[in-house]
């Protein structure tokens, strides 16, 4: 909330600002992002026609960019959903301007991330085998069940608080176009009666509670996909909490980036203030410290035992060919963001946004360093396999990264970027508190 109380008109105008006729910059960014997505689609079509041979994947390194992307994008999604759910359940009064963007980011990132197992299959039709011939004991089946359940919950989590906002949009458009029909459908007859408030609050609370274990389960299942495999670097019992924490870390970073971008683009400075960034930055530091702790714990126990395979892997990561990437993550993606937030001079919106960008890029690199070296290291007497991604994998990765801001920009062309419902409620509480204080 802001220092002065905001009027309903101000809140509604700000929330619907991206829904006004878009400017030239909007079109240029959308065109640029669409071009990247199109390039990715062409690359994927080329891969489907020619097989996985057009990628850098091989008989040994069977998981490369695609599975690193799967873990990364689902992690981003997880962070968005968890941020919103935890803030809702703890009743954090400053959450109101953040929740819509966090929830939309969660759904967009999940849609992108969920596509990667199918892309990695090479032949998408084989995905049907998981459904037709899946076995309960297969972690891949667990993954499909967890991701689809989480996707359904995330969509509901996004749509529930959108009901009153859709009613606002519906009432602002008395004409009977397709857009009005969609608003009418999504608003579910919302008129703001006390009974409707009660029903909506109860549903939102249930989903906010449910989405936390669901998100934890999705990332745990992803971690077990690695953890149940007898591979150096993967064969770990702490992988599930390690992955969950890493997902929250990158997810909060992504939420900060989305907030900064929309705040700047639509002049939402009065609604998304330095305080919001600072609070999220504190969460980021706590998560960074936790992630650092897990990482040290993992490498210390493995390095102390120094099993032959793991020793080779650690050498490859810390001193070998992958050392520049590993240390870039440690210093650039973990320690530098902590320092940027810890030092008051850089604890500004640009500084926090820079820290968040470093975290997001660093966490992608970390996922790559988890996925690929574990496969490159041979189990049978053989030499180390070096994996280089092909242009197809690079194009699909960039297209996927572009798809998330593109989806968000298009989504917020049609729906309020701030949750009007929650903003107005928060402002009402703010005014009531002031009135009570004055009395």
């Amino acid at each position: 909330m802001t220092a002065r109380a905001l009027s309903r008109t101000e809140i509604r105008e700000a929330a619907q600002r991206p829904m006004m006729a878009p400017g030239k910059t909007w079109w240029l960014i959308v065109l640029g992002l669409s071009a990247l997505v199109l390039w990715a689609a062409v690359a994927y079509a080329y891969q489907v026609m020619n097989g996985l041979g057009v990628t850098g994947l091989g008989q040994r390194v069977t998981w490369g960019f695609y599975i690193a992307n799967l873990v990364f994008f689902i992690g981003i999604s997880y962070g968005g959903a968890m941020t919103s759910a935890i803030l809702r359940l703890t009743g954090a009064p400053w959450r109101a301007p953040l929740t819509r963007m966090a929830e939309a980011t969660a759904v967009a990132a999940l849609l992108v991330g969920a596509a990667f197992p199918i892309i990695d299959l090479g032949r998408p039709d084989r995905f049907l085998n998981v459904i037709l011939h899946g076995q309960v004991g297969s972690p891949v089946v667990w993954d499909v069940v967890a991701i689809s359940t989480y996707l359904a919950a995330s969509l509901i989590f996004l749509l529930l608080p959108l009901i009153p906002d859709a009613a606002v949009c519906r009432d602002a458009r008395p004409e009977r176009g397709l857009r009005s029909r969609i608003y009418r459908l999504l608003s579910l007859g919302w008129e703001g009666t006390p009974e409707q408030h009660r029903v909506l609050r109860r549903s939102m609370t249930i989903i906010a509670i449910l989405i936390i274990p669901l998100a934890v389960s999705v990332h745990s299942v992803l971690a077990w996909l690695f953890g149940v495999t007898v591979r150096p670097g993967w064969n770990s019992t702490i992988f599930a909490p390690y992955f969950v924490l890493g997902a929250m870390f990158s997810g909060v970073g992504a939420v900060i980036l989305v907030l900064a971008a929309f705040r700047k683009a639509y002049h939402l400075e009065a609604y998304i203030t330095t305080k919001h960034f600072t609070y999220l930055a504190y969460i980021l530091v706590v998560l960074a410290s936790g992630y650092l702790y897990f990482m040290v714990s993992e490498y210390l126990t493995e390095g102390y035992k120094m099993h032959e395979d793991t020793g080779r892997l650690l050498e490859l990561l810390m001193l070998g060919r992958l050392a520049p990437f590993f240390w870039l993550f440690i210093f650039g993606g973990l320690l530098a963001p902590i320092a940027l937030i810890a030092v008051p001079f850089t604890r500004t919106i640009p500084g926090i946004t820079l820290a968040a960008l470093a975290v997001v890029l660093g966490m992608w690199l970390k996922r790559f360093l988890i996925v690929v070296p574990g496969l490159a290291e041979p189990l049978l007497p053989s030499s180390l396999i070096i994996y280089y991604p092909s242009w197809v994998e690079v194009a699909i990765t960039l297209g996927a990264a572009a798809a998330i801001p593109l989806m968000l920009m298009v989504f917020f062309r049609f729906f309020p970027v701030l949750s009007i419902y929650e903003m107005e409620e928060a402002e009402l509480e703010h005014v009531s508190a002031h009135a009570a204080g004055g009395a």
Partner: protein
Amino acid sequence: MAVGNLIRTAAVLVVAGAMLWLAGAPVVASATPTVLTALPPAEQEGGKAVTIAARLTDGSTNRPLGSLNVQFFVMTDVFGPRLMSVGQAITDTTGRAAISYKPSWEGDTKVVARFAGSAQFAATETTFQFVAVGPVPVHQDASFGLEPIRAWAPAVVVVLVLGVWATLIAVVSQTVLGLRVRIPEGAPVSVPIAGTHLQPASEDIGDGAS
């Protein structure tokens, strides 16, 4: 003068190179020939360890050679035919080197025993095979008496997943049904304030100045 120096330098380099080559060259050419004799196991029942052994002797005197390292390999067909190292052992006073090996597939197992050579003895190797009979599990049964848990765990997970989906469906349906506006009989047909979900007296929540 300069040409002479150049020639002298080249000659020195050639001689030095030749000396270095000779120093680093293997001495196996003058080493004593050796023979490795296979000591294959009898037909082996699947899943049980077998001793694979070979005896190393002097090729000319047939004297057993002790304290020398013999490596054992098994021919596999994982990612194409290749030799997989399965262990190494030092020969005893009778020249015998042996390791314990558990076959991981049914049928013929081809073994290569190899002495890599030393300063004194020439390298040699021998090949033999044995037959593993009966089913050979690649992975041991990992149940360790946890069978009841293994049997029930999938059912518990399925119930949990179904419970989550049932909750999601219940939330959606109760929201859709619960949000239907019930207009009491006799009330005006038009709704009071369309889309308004807060009921403050004035249009603005605050005065914008507090």
